[in-house]
């Protein structure tokens, strides 16, 4: 069960390495070793980033023998998506209202033939 903490999720995203890790996991599951390879940082540093992402509910792990492959946590990613969609909706609402206000405003006359 993944619990989603939006504050933690967005601050987890404020780091470029963690964003890159998520981008990699978006392509599929990966082990810590596979995740460490593309970055110029140590494995403990990657493990620390993975812990932050896991605590934020953005990734999950499973047990595969000695390995603990990580994957994106669907619930966490979806919670962020929904949140951003809601912010977007509030902004869309404002500008839809502005459309109506503009339609009601007296428009300055546009000269014929003016090409802009």
């Amino acid at each position: 069960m993944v619990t989603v903490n939006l504050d933690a999720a967005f601050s987890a995203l404020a780091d470029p390495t963690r964003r890159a890790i998520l981008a990699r996991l978006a392509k599929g599951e990966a082990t810590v070793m596979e995740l460490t390879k593309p970055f110029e940082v140590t494995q403990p540093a990657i493990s620390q980033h993975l812990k932050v992402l896991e605590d934020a509910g953005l990734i999950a792990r499973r047990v595969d023998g000695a390995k603990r492959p990580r994957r994106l946590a669907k619930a966490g990613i979806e919670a962020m998506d929904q949140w951003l969609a809601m912010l977007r909706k509030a902004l869309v609402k404002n500008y839809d209202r502005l459309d109506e206000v503009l339609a009601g405003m007296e428009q300055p006359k546009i000269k014929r033939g003016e090409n802009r």
Partner: protein
Amino acid sequence: MSKLTLKTEGDKHVIVTRHFAAPPEAVYRAHTDPKVIQKWLLGPEGWTMPVCINEAKPGGKIRYEWTNGKGGGFYLTGEYLELEPYSRIVHVERMHLPDPTPDNHVETRFDADGTGTLMTMRMTLPDAQTRAAMLATGMERGMEASYVRLEGMI
């Protein structure tokens, strides 16, 4: 017909674009005339802006206060840095929740686009952490109202 785009750029920027079926002069006025701003910059249904101070000149003050009429409310303050009628506005702003959020530096451009206007708003936050916090706690203006409402629903 969704005309709004909202995206992040680099570590510190958020870019919003929107097309309007009115010339830049009108869209610019809608962003600088308090009487017009009070009609649209409201967020979700049910919120109003009883206080709207907007001194559209360099160094001029901005203060917007919102309320949901049920005891919920918050406000935003800011200052104008540059104004080029009717094409460009640069200002800084911060939300008070009630503690002030770090300054959001906003450049808004109004470019003629056919018979309408393409508005491009480029927000710059002090750092990646602040941008993340802004996205997490409700973006700006009316967006915060959604957050307050969401809290009521949870």
